[in-house]
């Protein structure tokens, strides 16, 4: 009950942030205007539209997640609302989980809104519901879940500005998993060690990018359902570990 109350308050607070609403409006407008750029590649207008839609959702989701993740806990401390919350019978883990869930609900609402518009535009353009695109939107959400957990973890000890660059930086590096994986077989030992450390320690955000497989049906994945479930499990387990670390750090933090 306490965790959900904090999550609900966080969701409502974040949905009042103008910057997030502006991002959502811009993203929805870009998705809605997607069909008008089909002329750039007449023979593959559907692929362009799908690619654009998923890219917009990813980019907007990324900004929304980072801006939410870096703010939810530091803002409480900066505005000192944390005093009246933590002086109540609220455990610190409940506070961290509530803040994370509130941020996650915010990201969910934003991504779901963009996803609904995206599917609607495709329905209008192609005359059918492109239900397979839901997988792409869903994977973006779980990718953002992992990124949100990472941002929450950093927010327990880093300033929002430092956290912004850390989260963004690790998201970019984590998206280059194919590169780091290829370097694991490098002849140079140092390169192998560094690539190994980066590949296994930093969340593998690249695994969630299934756009190519969705946009280009010729790219084959043996079992899409297993692939998706594996990635969802990876996101949830990694997020749980990050949240555990966040709780351990915040439990020792003075507010």
């Amino acid at each position, binding site marked *: 009950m306490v965790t959900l109350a904090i999550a609900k308050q966080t969701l409502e607070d974040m949905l009042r942030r103008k910057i997030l609403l502006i991002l959502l409006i811009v993203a929805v407008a870009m998705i809605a205007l997607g069909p008008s750029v089909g002329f750039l590649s007449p023979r593959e207008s559907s692929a362009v539209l799908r690619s654009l839609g998923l890219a917009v959702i990813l980019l907007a989701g990324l900004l929304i997640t980072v801006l939410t993740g870096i703010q939810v806990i530091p803002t409480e401390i900066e505005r000192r609302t944390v*005093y009246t919350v933590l*002086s109540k019978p609220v455990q610190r883990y409940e506070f961290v989980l509530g803040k994370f869930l509130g941020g996650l609900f915010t990201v969910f609402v934003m991504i779901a809104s963009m996803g609904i518009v995206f599917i609607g535009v495709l329905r209008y353009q192609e005359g059918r519901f492109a239900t397979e695109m839901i997988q792409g939107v869903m994977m973006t959400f779980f990718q953002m879940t992992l990124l949100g957990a990472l941002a929450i973890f950093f927010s327990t000890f880093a300033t929002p500005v430092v956290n912004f660059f850390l989260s963004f930086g690790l998201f970019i590096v984590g998206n280059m998993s194919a590169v780091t994986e290829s370097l694991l077989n490098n002849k140079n030992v140092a390169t192998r060690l560094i690539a190994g450390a980066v590949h296994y320690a930093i969340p593998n955000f690249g695994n969630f990018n299934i756009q190519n497989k969705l946009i280009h049906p010729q790219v084959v994945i043996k079992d899409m359902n297993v692939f998706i479930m594996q990635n969802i499990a990876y996101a949830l387990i990694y997020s749980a570990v990050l949240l555990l670390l966040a709780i351990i750090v915040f439990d020792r933090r003075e507010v």
Partner: protein
Amino acid sequence: MAAAVSIQGLTKTYLDVWSKTEIRAVDNLTLEVEEGEIFGFLGRNGAGKTTTIKMLLGLIFPTLGTATVLGKPIGDTDAKAQVSYLPEEAYFYEGMTGWDTMDFYARLFRIPEPKRSERIRQCLKDVFLDESAWRRPIRGYSKGMRQRIGIAQALINDPKLLFLDEPTSGLDPIAHAELREIIVNVGRQGKTVFLSSHQLPDVELTCSRVAIIHRGKLLTSGKTQELTAGDKVEITFSGGDAALAEKVKAVAGTCEAKNGTCRVPAVDPQKVNDIVDLIRGAKASVVSVVPHRRTLEEVFVDTVMKAGAN
């Protein structure tokens, strides 16, 4: 009577990263607050009052020493369920309405419906928050309304112990008086109030005991009546002649005669009986024997100045 708050040797130090020196915000503080009393915690800005309260609430951690709140160690969730806190500035989620704010805090105390709505209504009425403001966002509230909702949220769990940090600072005189009345009413209900304040007349009116800290150290503590009790007595009498006035002057050191009435402004308590006997012996009338009292402000200033404050 059991102690609502018991502090033993509580110390909080910070390291100044620039000068590499240790700053003692609270220094070996030992203190007891009994159940059911309104306790005044006094000190200058930066004396360590808020730091002490924050340690007692588990928001920051003591460097040394221990404390119990309602018999439980610092940070205990069961104790927190019976404790409330109003910070120096009442900080709220600005976009929330007064009612939603109360609902949020009530949920943190796990108060179920319909009791939750009843408590919210009762607390908002107890602090005289205008009903038309209940459903308005807090960002539009005045300072006085914010303090009222701050007190209301502190009462939502019907607490046994309230920590109030400068609850009347920055309020206009009417709001100030009303809020003081609310605090007195809370005390009448048998709740323990730990009141940190600069408003010494308020503290003198409301608190049965006070403690004064300076630079983190406890300078004095005791019953307000005892601390403000003076060490002199003023005697007034009428009907005596010049010879009586001279005799009284010889004992007390001074005697001011005016319009047939004599006033002896500062008599040592042990000489009171001798002077009264002289007056009665001369068939004059004792008009009044009034013990001097100091204001709490005088006690505070004297105590802090003696401790070497500038």
